[in-house]
């Protein structure tokens, strides 16, 4: 009888711990997703181009000012 009660208690405690850990994992995954979203935002051209133009004075060159060489393997 005592063994049964002990097993039951242990099972309940483990269940609580698992549920807490699952919630934490979910929260971390969610936070990770949000961070990735923020990285994506920062990397977007709509964020970078105005900064390049205004802060660094860098502009997309005219095609006539660029010579693109074909890569030969």
């Amino acid at each position: 009888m005592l063994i049964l009660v002990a097993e039951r208690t242990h099972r309940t405690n483990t269940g609580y711990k698992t549920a807490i850990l699952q919630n934490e994992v979910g929260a971390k995954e969610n936070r990770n997703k949000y961070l990735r979203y923020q990285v994506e935002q920062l990397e977007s051209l709509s964020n970078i181009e105005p900064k390049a133009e205004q802060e660094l004075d860098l502009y997309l060159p005219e095609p006539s000012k660029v010579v693109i060489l074909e890569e030969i393997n």
Partner: protein
Amino acid sequence: MILKGRAKFCGLIAILTAFIIAGRLFYLQTIKHEELTKITDNRVFRTISQEVLRGNFLDRNGRILAESIRSYSIAVSKKYVNDKEKTFDVLSIALKDVNKKKLKKLWKDKGNFFYVKKNVMPDEYEILKYAINKQKITGIEISPMYTRLRPYDDMAIDLLGYTNSKNMGLSGLELYYNDKLIRKTKKKRVAKSRRGNIIYDASIEKKEPTLNIYLTLDADMQYYAEKILNKYVDKNQADGGVLIVQDSKTAEVLALASNPRKNGQAMAFQWTYEPGSTFKAITFAAALDTNTIKITDSIQCEETGKWEVTPDVFIRDVHKAEHGYLTVPEVLSDSSNIGSGKIALKMDTKDFYDYIKAFGFGIKTAISFPAEPNGILRNWRKWYKIDKATLAFGHGISVTPIQLVTAYTALANGGILMQPYIVEKITNHKGRVIKKNKPTKIRKVIDSSTADLMKILLVKVVEGGTGTEAKVQGYSTAGKTGTSEKFLQGKYSETHHTVSFAGFVPVEKPKYTILVILDNPKTTTYASQSASPAFREMASAILNMKSVPQDEKVF
């Protein structure tokens, strides 16, 4: 003796009791087993629904265009607040856009329960949760919800569309692919304590994987497409416009921009317009392919600048030119309506109709987008002479931008009409490809030799005709301008126009087919001054960005 009798009696009672207990146990554990287990399970176990986060939209390079994350709504339940001042402090510090003044007002104006902020992001939530535990305050209610995030704000929103707060797609691709993105609600069987806390997951039903949709769009090209279109719409004071970039080999849509940008309403797929002179390329391709004309032929384009097709019905050249005889390439490069009309009249009517159909006009492209129209192409049996002549320069026909750009891609692609598509692949949450769209040939519309001739003609338009403003330095460029009068209140308007430029670069090995349309520009009625420079700017940006080697001398 008496004792012996009593002992016997007691023994009998004990045995009987044991038998009764054993019988009861047998009854409960064997006969009533299932029923009782069900009662216990119903008390302890609960089946709870767990929302599966909506799938993502990504561009062709795996950059997120739209994703769902768990967010939170924060509310206050007044009667459970143990320390009002501390609660206000915590909320105003942890949550952006929330201050004490606002909280005091809400506290005063609202009832017992009021929302402080919805769509709270995980970073704010974590600070709030920490502060609540640290300060030991009660009365702040946090409930999870879902927020659809777009890292590029409203970029491609006309294509992607919107979802509601219940995670359902309302418009655009969000609506079209709703069943793929939302899947079924995941169900879990969990054990709950008396207080309702989940103790452990008893079993988890087979998880429905969330699917992610990779589009053929390139986020960087899309950025330039929207930026350039908006610039030219503003500059020409147009009512709106469309810009599409398509891969010239596969007909994948690489970028598409609409102005105005309405969520879930992609003008590129849903808007219909009269294509005007951009349609001449289709007429010429049909005429050359049927040997109705040869590239060396000359056409009388009327020195008066007008041609009486049927009594009292005239066709005029828009550019007011008094041409006389023009060679076939000149008819196209000078965009002569008269010359084009005459070429169309030379063709067999059914042949002309069949070619238009074969180029994909008058029928949906089936590009997987809601509410795509067919466009309008009347049956050839109902055409009068004037209908056939005006159709030659894109009047009396209504097309969608995607139909036109796909037809130009066929010209660039050796005469092969490809199936345009916007979804590259669908993957599950582990990245395994569930479905992949591959370039699909619909039909060969014209012979490759005709397509080569068309390239020569369209290059001439850009080199010395109406499309010179579309020329991209260092790259051979082919294309055609188009200006059409808008059909308003039952007649063609002389004041409202649609101007466009359709073309492809580089000509030898075409990579990009681009269509720019400006709806009703006020500053000019000529595509050469409005749509052509927009084409050049877009082509320059993407050729540069994708490091496509020049095929002409730059210096």
